[in-house]
């Protein structure tokens, strides 16, 4: 076997929440209909309405803006905007299907030291339960920037999940992204890792380790959790016969169960899940937490091995 140069350098870039902020400034300069609401976590002032620590009110004000023709973008910690604003997201935004963009920052457990009350491990489940919502989960600064701009152009409610931790850069600056279209980052035939957010980089690392052992791992970045790219999932199931789903979210109600639904409906195959197992995390550094709660390349590799062990040999 000839050693191959890693395809991905995975150089550390911006946190996806920071990329969101920069993309929003760009979008706001171009489109005067964009207005921004924030719950005590920002300093900008341009068509910006400080809402105080009052997420429910902020979300419903965004709905009022959207009814009147504006494109409101509201942002706060994922856990607070989704949980404290959920009833308003349900009745004032999703039910009339308004053009509101909701950005959750500080998603997952990788916020670190602040601990579980500030961590958001359930917002994929919540956001996907809102009929008509598009749910986006970018992996790096390039995808975050492009998808924030795409979400603003898209007419309808969108939730974007961003993180606080600096994320490895995966994409070249000119990469094209389309809402709802997953990206096959690495080809492979033995097993597919379907990942989102920070776990995409871990999936790439897992690919590299397993490839050295002669195991061919397909890696797919599902940056749009809803609507899912059913075709990419079906293809992966049919062509590799084993799927690992990896996400920084509770396994209950996460991307994994959504992928499992598509696999079950199209081409059943063995599946394994990397995510948070029915628990809240704790304080620690982001790296310590991702390690302790099983969200690093090691865990993706172990899951891939389990899947391969259960996979029926091809006839």
């Amino acid at each position, binding site marked *: 076997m000839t050693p191959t140069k890693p395809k991905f350098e995975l150089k550390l870039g911006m946190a996806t929440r920071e990329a969101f902020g920069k993309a929003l400034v760009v979008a706001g300069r171009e489109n005067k209909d964009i*207005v921004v609401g924030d719950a005590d976590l920002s300093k900008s002032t341009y*068509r910006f*309405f400080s*809402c*105080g620590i*009052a997420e*429910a*009110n902020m*979300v*419903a*004000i*965004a*709905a*009022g*803006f*959207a*009814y*009147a*023709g*504006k494109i*409101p973008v509201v942002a706060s910690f994922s856990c607070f905007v989704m949980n404290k604003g959920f*009833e*308003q997201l*349900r*009745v*004032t935004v999703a*039910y*009339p*299907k308004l053009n509101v963009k909701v950005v959750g920052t500080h998603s997952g457990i990788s916020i670190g030291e602040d601990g579980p009350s500030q961590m958001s491990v359930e917002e994929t489940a919540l956001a996907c339960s809102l009929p008509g919502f598009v749910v986006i989960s970018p992996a790096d600064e390039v995808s975050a920037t492009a998808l924030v701009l795409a979400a603003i152009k898209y007419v309808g409610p969108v939730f974007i999940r961003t993180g606080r931790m600096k994320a490895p850069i995966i994409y070249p600056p000119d990469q094209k992204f389309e809402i709802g279209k997953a990206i096959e980052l690495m080809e492979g035939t033995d097993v597919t890792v379907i990942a989102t957010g920070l776990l995409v980089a871990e999936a790439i690392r897992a690919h590299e380790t397993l490839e050295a052992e002669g195991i061919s791992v397909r890696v797919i970045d599902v940056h749009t959790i809803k609507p899912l790219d059913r075709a990419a999932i079906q293809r992966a199931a049919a062509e590799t016969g084993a799927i690992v789903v990896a996400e920084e979210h509770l396994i209950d109600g996460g991307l994994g169960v959504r992928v499992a639904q598509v696999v079950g409906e199209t081409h059943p195959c063995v599946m394994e899940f990397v995510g948070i197992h029915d628990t809240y995390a704790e304080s620690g550094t982001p790296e310590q937490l991702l390690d302790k709660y099983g969200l690093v390349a090691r865990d993706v590799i172990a899951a891939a091995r389990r899947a391969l062990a259960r996979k029926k040999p091809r006839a």
Partner: protein
Amino acid sequence: MQAIAKRIRRGIIEMIGAAKSGHPGGSLSAVELVVALYFDVMRHDPSNPKWPDRDRFILSKGHAAPVLYAAMAECGYTPLDQLNTLRKLGSIYQGHPDVRFIPSLEASTGSLGEGVSLALGMGLTARLNGSPARTYAMMGDGEIQEGQIWESAMFGAFHKVDNIVAIVDYNGIQLDGFVKDIMEVAPLAAKWRAFGWHTVEIDGHNIPVIQAAFKEASETKGKPTAIIAHTIKGKGVSFMENNPKFHGTAPTPDEVKLALQELQ
């Protein structure tokens, strides 16, 4: 406008009677306020419901949908002859206001506490657009037990959203009984004043007084206005007045007959 108010009261009784469910008490208490808005105060055009500069009305107390439906039908936004399909499968007259079924509604409501926030978004949009549009949100007095109301009250004063008016239909009764026995909201005017709103307390059944209050609101700059409208739950039908039973109970066919006789 008195005649319109009476027709709307009859419409409320007939449609809730036909639906066999609904909220007559809080619909009847709001009649004069809604009539004053739709037939005098608000600048709107039923032939052009999406006119960007129109004034807007949000029924934050969405369970009083029958009063809004009757008024909008009377204006010509929606068919009068379908009011009695209220709450039935396929009807545009849903149990609570739903813009998917009636696009000329300003907002889908029904989850209490959200209407003033919606009005704030609309009011700020008008301000950004340099539009004269004014937005009116009507709450129930039980509704203002919701914490979000006070979040929106803080926001409205802080951002000086003086093109919106919050109206409290202060009828003193909520689903389980009298507001004062369940979770007292008094002193209401003092609360809204303390939150920085220009606050007017009025008789919510006296149309000239209501018109004057809305005029005062439109002339008040630098702060939003709250109108605390003292009303009678079930107003206009003797056996429904001040009777908690008719918060959320439809009249029987006999009660419908009696009520309509009183509303001749």
